[in-house]
């Protein structure tokens, strides 16, 4: 077998078109996951009655099951729920009109939310109690203290973990091909299906993923330096 260099280049170029889909899945799931995760983290930190148990159950169940399983549960389970509700309420909407990528968005957001809740929680726990007390001593309300004092520092403390999660979701987004979403990985399969040069095609995909990962690392590094400028402590 001989490596077809020209086809790697050709595949690479054709795969570029799938980058937006992959990035969209990644960023939608990280963004929604961040909101879900922050809510779950707050519920657990403040031990909100009943809800903090639900949040804990959510985190352990999602982290205890594979991301692909979440996708299948949503893909096969959601239509029942949607169609059942639509019928009950007499709406014309049917699950068949949900775009495939919608399942990926929802499922991966739920996945990311569980992992990000731990990222957010560890970030908030990294902020010393004294910061909150100082805010309270000035007469700030809890939401003011969280927004102005705790969250900015928690975000700075959790950035390394956060960039890890973004990269994890980028790579995890390949699973979307199982529900017929054409991301970079799926596109690689399609590109190779005419001449069976799968290795070349997937090699091109690997290069693109690597490039995207490096870009994310750089971006996070830059943000880290910027919002962590106040921090000249630590052991490193």
């Amino acid at each position: 077998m001989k490596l077809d260099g020209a086809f790697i280049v050709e595949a690479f170029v054709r795969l570029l078109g799938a980058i937006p889909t992959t990035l969209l899945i990644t960023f939608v799931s990280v963004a929604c996951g961040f909101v879900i995760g922050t809510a779950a983290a707050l519920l657990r930190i403040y031990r909100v009655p009943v809800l903090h148990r639900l949040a804990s159950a959510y985190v352990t169940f999602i982290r205890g099951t594979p991301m692909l399983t979440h996708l299948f549960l949503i893909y096969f389970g959601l239509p029942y729920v949607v169609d059942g509700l639509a019928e009950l309420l007499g709406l014309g909407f049917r699950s068949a009109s949900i775009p495939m990528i919608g399942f990926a968005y929802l499922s991966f957001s739920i996945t990311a939310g569980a992992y990000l809740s731990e990222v957010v929680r560890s970030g908030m726990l990294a902020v010393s109690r004294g910061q909150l007390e100082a805010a309270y001593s000035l007469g700030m309300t809890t939401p003011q203290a969280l927004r102005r004092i705790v969250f900015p520092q928690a975000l700075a403390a959790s950035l390394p973990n956060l960039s890890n999660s973004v990269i994890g979701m980028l790579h995890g987004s390949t699973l979307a091909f199982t529900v017929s979403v054409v991301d970079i990985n799926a596109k690689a399969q399609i590109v190779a299906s005419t001449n069976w040069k799968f290795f070349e095609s997937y090699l091109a995909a690997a290069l693109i993923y690597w490039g995207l990962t490096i870009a994310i690392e750089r971006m996070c590094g830059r943000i880290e330096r910027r919002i962590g400028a106040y921090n000249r402590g630590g052991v490193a």
Partner: protein
Amino acid sequence: MIELKEVRKSFGKQEVLKGISLKVEKGEVVAVVGPSGSGKTTLLRCINFLEKPTSGEVIVGDLAVAAGRAHRKEVLALRRKTSMVFQQYNLFRHKTALENVMEGLTVVRKLPKAEARERSVRLLEKVGLGAKLDAYPSRLSGGQQQRIGIARALAMEPEAILLDEPTSALDPELVGEVLAVIRNIAKEGITMIIVTHEMSFAQEVASRVVFMDQGTIVEEGPPGELFARPKEERTRLFLSRFAPEGSYSI
């Protein structure tokens, strides 16, 4: 001005404050001294409800808050009447010196930015840090950080300032600069309650000294009297560890 009525505080089964009653008049500088674990810091933190008293009543100015049924809004109003200087400074780490002082003014007092800035700059100059406005706390010495902490507390124009062992975390050579700042504001007639281990400073600055031991106030009085002629055996014992008897000059 500030009054505590039968304030009690327990952590689990351990009662740290055993019914403290204390009255502080406007303009007074009260030093609270005593062995560690005597409840001094807890007492101070009960005044702004950073520790919620188990029972009793806290009165600051015209606002009386009872421990049992303290509403969130009452606690907030109470906290806005005082400000606190912490042993570990607790400056906001992600904000510069200037932003630290401005924060309470813009967020809590809702002052326009320009006005908050002007007042903050003036206060930082007053504590000798006019050249460090844009420095982050991590770049400053403990003494500088604590002086910013004092400026932050002053900025709120509180009815009283609560200082919790303001020099205990400092290197010995930095204690002086912080005490000098406190000495200056004491002269301005601002009401202060200082928990401290600096006996000679307490003697110099305080208009009244309160000696606490094991969750109770053992005795109180003007510094000259309390340090020179303590009435209680426990006070005598405590003071003897700081200096040989009779060496305090008045």
